[in-house]
């Protein structure tokens, strides 16, 4: 396939490295994972990777360093992450490729070759040796697009390989092609005026930089380059004089003119190598039939039925109450939704031969259908994470797997339900009494239960193992695990960017754009990770608002899971009220912040990737990676918190703290003083804070639900209350200490303010 060029093998003193560069969401990270065998996050939306990652790979000429970069549309950068990618390329390359030891693998979305070639021509100007990797070859075939790779190869003068990263296809070819990497033989002629400008600026570029590329960046008005080159004021003045004199000859801004000329140049290459057949691949007829005639009607019916069910749930208080009227309402709404969906789809989509994923992709951002689908998705997540994860699994982990020191749990049964028969079959009984029980037995062989050392680990209220470790693992594993599983499904199918399309108008009200949906939803998983992701937002103002709102009103999954389970099982009404209060605070604070903070809103221009069938393997891998990350962050803090609590309770200081907190906690919020403990733990972890609030209320009232109004106030405060410690550290790192202090200085009093007002309102009604 590849023309063999004989090039002298150079064994440089440095380890050679290859940088993976390309447009957003083309599969760079997927290729990186395949090359290096390590894992970085792969998701179906542009802007997954915001930081550079490095790994090593065994190439055919020895070990090479592989660098994954954020996606770029233009190497004359327009945003922070594009700048990161550009800088990676500038550091390694040089005007003389033989001196530089960095090669580039340009990963391209084969079905979007125009946009890839735009970058290739820029890489050529940077003088970098490139291998062009046409990834997503499968989707290219599916859409009837054929690319003459042989011709492309000879036009560009570089190796061109085809890969399908998700199927691990073509990686061998890619590795084999690496040594043949060469500078693309492309030279865009920008016309007399711009070329003259380039030749006037080139002498000002210091050695070691690609002259033509740098000159074009300067002409395009990229100020960061001037800084990077360490230009003095006079040189900068010189450059801008040249720039202005050229600009005067164009009615368009120079950067736009440059882009247009480049695009026209690329268009010729594209026309010569790409043929699009009108025929597209269709989904399998059987799949199609079952999708349109079984799945859609059934799902639409369930949708209508469920939404009515939820409405009834919120208004009637309890799940189980279904009088005949309720049943009729539900059936009617189910039928209505079924008819609507089918009418919509059968009118057009059934006849035009569209694939199932295309239809799903459209439905999930359809002006009407998208909202019931969203509600159902949220409901499914609530069931999975809130009820099954936070309820059943946490309970099982806490009571059966960990158990209690001193009391045997009595073991558990392994069983499975028999469908339709309404009964369970027990396989056998597991006589396991819980880890803590056995540890307790072990401990009691050495010391008495009154011994301080024993209590440090196994005390029922503040033992490091009995409380700290047990909660951390029993809570984090099921809740966070299931949440990230659901989240991974949304990410990989391409649902998240569609959510951004749906919510853009609402987010504009709070000074953000639809793009901020990604960090905000990720914030439900873990605020720490999400704060890093705010980098995809364009302006400082947006990043600050997103960080603030996340710290204030987005509970993390562990916390939300615990809350959803307890509240949901007590009263649907109170849970709805809780969600409403938190959401209204989010919007209110966002709205005010968007008015107060200086700066404008940025443009919303976002690529919507195609809807794809998620790969289970990738989701599981991603979930495992994130849970591991989460545990590493949560466990130490749970232990530290428990240790602090232990010291406080053993020295008796807790009493004084409760006393000191009484004016706020008891008088203002109307809560029992014991809950002060929960707020202290909330400083470390919000989820831990929520759990110990429950425990405190349970101890005082006998059951959590005895005083739903108190519970509501407590949970609203702990949700709005400070972000957890790790999140706070990331806020400092990303936004700076001053902003972080301001954010905290606002959040803490505000949380108590809202809680107090809520308490007053609840009392009067």
């Amino acid at each position, binding site marked *: 396939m590849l023309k063999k060029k004989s090039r002298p093998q150079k064994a440089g003193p440095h380890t050679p490295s290859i940088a993976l560069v390309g447009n957003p969401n083309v599969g760079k990270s997927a290729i990186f994972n395949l090359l290096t065998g390590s894992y970085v996050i792969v998701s179906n939306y542009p802007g997954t990777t915001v930081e550079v990652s490095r790994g090593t790979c065994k190439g055919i000429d020895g070990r090479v360093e592989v660098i994954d970069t954020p996606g770029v*549309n*233009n190497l*004359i950068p*327009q945003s922070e992450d594009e700048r990161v990618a550009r800088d990676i390329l500038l550091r390694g390359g040089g005007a003389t490729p033989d001196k530089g030891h960095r090669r580039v693998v340009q990963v391209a*979305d084969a*079905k*979007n070759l*125009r*946009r890839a070639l*735009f970058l290739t021509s820029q890489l050529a100007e940077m003088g970098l040796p490139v291998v062009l990797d046409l990834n997503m070859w499968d989707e290219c075939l599916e*859409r009837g*697009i054929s690319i003459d790779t042989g011709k492309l190869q000879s036009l560009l003068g570089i190796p061109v390989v085809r890969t399908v990263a998700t199927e691990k296809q073509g990686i061998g070819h890619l590795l084999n092609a690496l040594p043949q990497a060469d500078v693309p033989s492309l030279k865009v002629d920008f016309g007399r*005026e711009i070329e003259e400008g380039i030749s006037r600026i080139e002498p000002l570029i210091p050695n070691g930089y690609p002259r033509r590329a740098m000159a074009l960046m300067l002409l*395009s*008005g990229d100020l960061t380059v001037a800084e990077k080159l360490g230009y003095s004021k006079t040189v900068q003045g010189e450059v801008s004089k040249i720039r202005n004199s050229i600009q*005067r*000859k*164009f*009615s*368009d*801004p120079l*950067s*736009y*003119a440059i*882009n*247009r000329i480049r*695009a026209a140049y690329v268009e010729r290459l594209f026309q010569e190598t790409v043929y699009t057949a009108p025929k597209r691949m269709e989904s399998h007829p059987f799949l199609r039939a079952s999708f349109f005639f079984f799945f859609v009607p059934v799902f639409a019916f369930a949708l209508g039925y469920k939404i009515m069910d939820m409405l009834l749930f919120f208004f009637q208080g309890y799940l189980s109450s279904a009088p005949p009227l309720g049943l009729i309402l539900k059936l009617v709404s189910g039928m209505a939704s079924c008819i609507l969906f089918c009418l919509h789809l059968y009118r057009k989509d059934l006849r035009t031969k569209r694939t199932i994923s295309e239809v799903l992709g*459209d439905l999930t*951002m*359809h*002006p009407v259908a*998208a909202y019931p689908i969203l509600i159902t998705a949220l409901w499914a997540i609530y069931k999975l994470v809130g009820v099954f994860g936070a309820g059943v699994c946490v309970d099982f982990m806490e009571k059966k797997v960990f158990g209690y020191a001193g009391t045997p749990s009595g073991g558990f049964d392994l069983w499975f339900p028999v469908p339709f028969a309404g009964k369970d079959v027990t396989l056998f009984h597991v006589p396991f009494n819980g880890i803590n029980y056995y540890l307790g037995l072990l401990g009691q062989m050495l010391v008495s239960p009154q011994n301080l050392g024993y209590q440090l680990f196994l005390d029922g209220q503040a033992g490091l193992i009995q409380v700290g470790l047990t909660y951390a693992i029993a809570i984090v594993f099921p809740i966070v695990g299931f949440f990230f599983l659901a989240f991974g499904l949304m990410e990989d199918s391409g649902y998240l*960017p569609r959510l*951004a*399309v*749906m*919510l*853009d*108008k609402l987010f504009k009200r709070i000074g953000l*754009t*639809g793009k901020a949906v990604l960090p905000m939803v990720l914030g439900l998983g873990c605020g720490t990770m999400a704060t890093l992701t705010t980098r995809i937002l364009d302006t400082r103002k947006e990043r600050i608002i997103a960080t603030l709102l996340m710290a204030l009103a987005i509970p993390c999954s562990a916390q939300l899971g615990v809350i959803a389970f307890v509240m949901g099982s007590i009263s649907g009404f109170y849970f709805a009220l809780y969600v409403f209060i938190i959401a209204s605070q989010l919007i209110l604070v966002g709205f005010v912040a968007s008015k107060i903070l200086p700066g404008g809103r940025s*443009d*919303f*221009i*976002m*690529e*919507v*990737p*195609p809807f794809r069938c998620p790969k289970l393997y990738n989701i599981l891998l991603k979930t495992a990676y994130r849970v591991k990350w989460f545990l590493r962050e949560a466990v130490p803090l749970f232990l530290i918190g428990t240790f602090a609590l232990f010291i406080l309770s053993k020295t008796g200081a807790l009493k004084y703290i409760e006393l000191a907190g009484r004016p706020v906690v008891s008088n203002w919020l109307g809560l029992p003083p014991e809950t002060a403990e929960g707020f202290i733990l909330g400083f470390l972890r919000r989820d831990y804070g929520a759990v110990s609030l429950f425990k405190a209320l349970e101890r005082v009232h006998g059951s959590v639900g005895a005083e739903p109004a108190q519970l509501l106030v407590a949970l609203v405060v702990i949700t709005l209350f400070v972000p957890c410690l790790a999140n706070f550290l990331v806020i400092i790192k990303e936004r700076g200490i001053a902003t972080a202090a301001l954010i905290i200085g606002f959040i803490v009093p505000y949380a108590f303010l809202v809680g107090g007002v809520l308490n007053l309102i609840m009392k009067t009604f």
Partner: protein
Amino acid sequence: MTEPKIEEVLEHIWTHEEEFGKRASKDMLSQWIDPQAVDTVLQDMLRQKFVHMYNSLIVLTAMGRKEAEQVIRRHRLAERLLKDILEVKHDTMDSSACEFEHFLNDEVTTSICTLLGHPVRCPHGKLIPPGECCQRAKKILRPLVLSLLELTPGEEAKVAYITTEHHPRLDRLSSMGLLPGTVIRVHQKQPTLVIQMGETQLALDEDIARDIYVRRSH
């Protein structure tokens, strides 16, 4: 026809009002035309009832305003013609347009306007005063060039030009492949505008889409 000098002055007064929202004053005239000619030109304008004086401010009469609008219209249409059809890209565009505006008669202006599809804005993003032809076209037939926002879902069109004062926006759009000549299809308009171009689907603000002008493909 009106004298070129007077047309030139009327054009300047009109753009001054458009740009700063303020009346022009007499001492500005000398920056715009040969200072020696100021007095005679002003006398001529007053005589033809294009302007009247209010202290030292020059106020356009209804007739003068109409005359000025015609000049501006010819100037800006000429710019569009030079840019879109003749692809003149130098600073000569402005000066050539300034020459055009003085010798285009009404009939030629109308046919240029029709040829260009009754454009709304000049290449600098300024509004082109509509002529009778534009009003008629709006009623009778669908305009050839219109804002992306006016397309209905499912319609296909080719980008004709993008007028925006906002340069980063132009850079972003053009590096994603949205340029004059690109064929786009409106995928949906609610809750947010989504367009399809080639294999790329793009969600866009309405503010941005408003400045993208497209030509319907039939």
